[in-house]
């Protein structure tokens, strides 16, 4: 049988770009020390190793526990590009886990990251925005981003960044605006979003519409949306080819037509027909939003008149597969058939 011969040589270094990861519980403390070293190569190798380790949430917890975040914050200000890119990547991976997000909020990483908003390296900024996006999925994270005053700069960045990063920015903004939209409204977000609605990229259109949904939740947002004449554009986009865009636009309309001015603006822009067509869409979100938007419009007497002819469509939708759609259809019928 083959015998176990112990070789005299160390095992070959498969990946010289990565630092050697110590065994067991020594891995993270050792990497933490290496992060503080003076030598550039050591730091870079430690960062690469850390990238690999951070996919495991237990390691993320350990890392935060031993205070890796302080070193990472210091490394964000490093002069070397590679170090910054890798640090932002590590932070982004940590932000995909809830432990990481909570740690970010406790250690005030948002402020440290915000210094890199104008970084010359595009990868760095992309990772940064990915980190923000994941952080914003958590309500307290979104609150943290809002309270650190980053919203105006993010809105401003919307104009200047490239497309991929714009999508991330729109996602982040959508999540943050669900929490608190006042700052965004103050920094002219609605005109920017109006421009983005006309972009060529369908992803950007759908995400811009999603952000509009969020921004038109508070009353001020609805008023601004009406004032900037976004509603006709939204109605026009209801005929867009991409289902996701249609769904989000219907959602934005649903929120914007709560106010009376919004309702009449939408009715003037002939919103009812495209919305009726959207009722047969394949995406349940589109159907749901369309039903809700039509319900809003049915509150107005003119809308009610027009929609009374289409009550059978709603009855058919009552047998839809999704429970939410059924309920929405019932409510819509109730509203349409209401007599004062």
């Amino acid at each position, binding site marked *: 049988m083959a015998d176990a011969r112990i070789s005299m040589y160390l095992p070959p270094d498969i990946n010289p770009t990565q630092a050697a990861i110590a065994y067991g519980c020594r891995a993270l403390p050792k990497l933490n020390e290496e992060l503080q070293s003076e030598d550039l190569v050591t730091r870079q190798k430690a960062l690469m190793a850390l990238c690999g380790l951070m*996919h495991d949430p237990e390691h993320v917890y350990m890392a935060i526990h031993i205070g890796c975040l302080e070193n990472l914050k210091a490394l964000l200000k490093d002069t070397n590009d590679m170090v910054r890119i890798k640090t932002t990547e590590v932070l982004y991976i940590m932000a995909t886990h809830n432990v990481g997000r909570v740690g970010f909020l406790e250690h005030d990483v948002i402020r440290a990251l915000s210094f890199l908003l104008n970084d010359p390296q595009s990868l760095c900024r992309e990772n940064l925005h990915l980190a923000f996006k994941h952080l914003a999925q958590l309500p307290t994270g979104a609150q943290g981003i809002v309270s650190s005053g980053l919203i105006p700069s993010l809105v401003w960045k919307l104009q200047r960044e490239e497309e991929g990063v714009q999508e991330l920015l729109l996602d982040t903004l959508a999540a943050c605006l669900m929490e608190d939209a006042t700052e965004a409204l103050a920094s002219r977000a609605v005109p920017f979003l109006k421009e983005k609605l006309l972009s060529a990229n369908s992803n950007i259109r759908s995400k811009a519409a999603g952000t509009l949904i969020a921004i038109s939740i508070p009353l001020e947002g609805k008023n601004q949306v009406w004032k900037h004449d976004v509603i006709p554009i939204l109605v026009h986009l209801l005929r867009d080819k991409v289902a996701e865009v249609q769904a989000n636009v219907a959602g934005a309309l649903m*929120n914007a037509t*709560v106010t009376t001015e919004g309702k009449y603006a939408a009715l003037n822009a002939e919103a009812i027909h495209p919305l009726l067509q959207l009722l047969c869409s394949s995406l349940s979100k589109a159907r749901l939003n369309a039903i809700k938007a039509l319900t809003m419009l049915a509150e107005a007497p003119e809308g009610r008149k027009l929609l009374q002819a289409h009550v059978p469509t709603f009855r058919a939708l009552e047998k839809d597969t999704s429970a*939410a759609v059924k309920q929405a259809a019932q409510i819509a019928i109730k509203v349409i058939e209401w007599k004062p």
Partner: protein
Amino acid sequence: VASALTDRASPAMATYTYTSRPRALPCQRRRYRDNLMQPAEEPVRYGNIMYDRRVIRGNTYALQAEPPPGQPDPAEIQRRQQAKRRALAKRRAQEQLRPRTPEPVEGRKHVDVQTELYLEEIADRIIEVDMECQTDAFLDRPPTPLFIPAKTGKDVATQILEGELFDFDLEVKPMLEVLVGKTIEQSLLEVMEEEELASLQASQYAFEELRNVELAEVQRLEEQERRHREEKERRKQQQWQVVHKHHETAEKIAARAFAQRYLADLLPSVFDSLRDGGYFYDPVERDIEIGFLPWLMNEVDKTMEYSIVGRTVLDMLIREVVEKRLSLYEPKEDRQSPPKPEDGLGGPGGVRDSLVDYAFQDHGASPAQRPLPDRDSPPRAPHDGRSVEGVSSQEGRPMEEEDEQTRKFLGREELFQ
């Protein structure tokens, strides 16, 4: 009893061989058998070779020619003697035949002489020479030559054929499992992480959808509520205004009716009250009232004033005289001590009187200075009435005043002191 094996091939060799298996010898206990019918049924008793007489013990070389204790064989003895004689004779003969050196000549002796090249000293003492040998102390020891032991044993060769040492497929299986397993595990982890993220995103998407819809619904309901409420408010307001107007109208009607009734007997009462108020007057009477009577009163007033003025002047004269007298009498009166309490009363009374005097005097002076404004406004009439009063009261008093003058300057004394 062991069987004796004889060599069957012996007649050609003419040797005798006897072999037997080693056996223990039985000892003879009984010389005579008890009964013939018992060959060997009872256990055979073996004798111990150590205690057997037949075995020769001790040293055997001293016993070689031991004659037997019985009579020796005479033939044997003779043969031996003859052998001895023959041997002896042979020896003698051989001795004689051997060449010897001849006997020395007379007077000489044989001496041993050495004829070799080098003479040897022949002595009993053996010549000994001590020789010693020592290796050089500092000579390097050459390396031990490689000890290759002599090859011993047999040479054996072996050849390992395919599949004899180990089965590759079996052996490599665990290693491959580990390698491939680890790789797949890592990739599965990554894929699972992505899947997890994707499923989280999907559930979040669904949640967001529902949440947005619910939120919109809530807002719509709020809006609806608000509108209905406002509508209700407006209607209520309208209704209230209607009711209010209704009330007002009713009140107005009621007020109108009441006013009409109230004012029905207004005219007569108006006339009555006017008449009572004296608005319907007899012009002559009025004229007399307005014109004549005030003039008359003014004239009366004037006349009275004249008389008052006269009296005042008189009073002034009297006063001056009295004062002069007083200033003359004052130093004398200083000595008079007791202030009487009535004087105290009289003092302030005197002050008041003097004030009244002054007012009276002023009053008296002013009508004298003023031209007669008596016919003027009716407000003056009560004033004059009062002054008439004052005059009339003062008329009663001047008598008292003159009586009091003496008491007065006593009072003034106190004041001045």
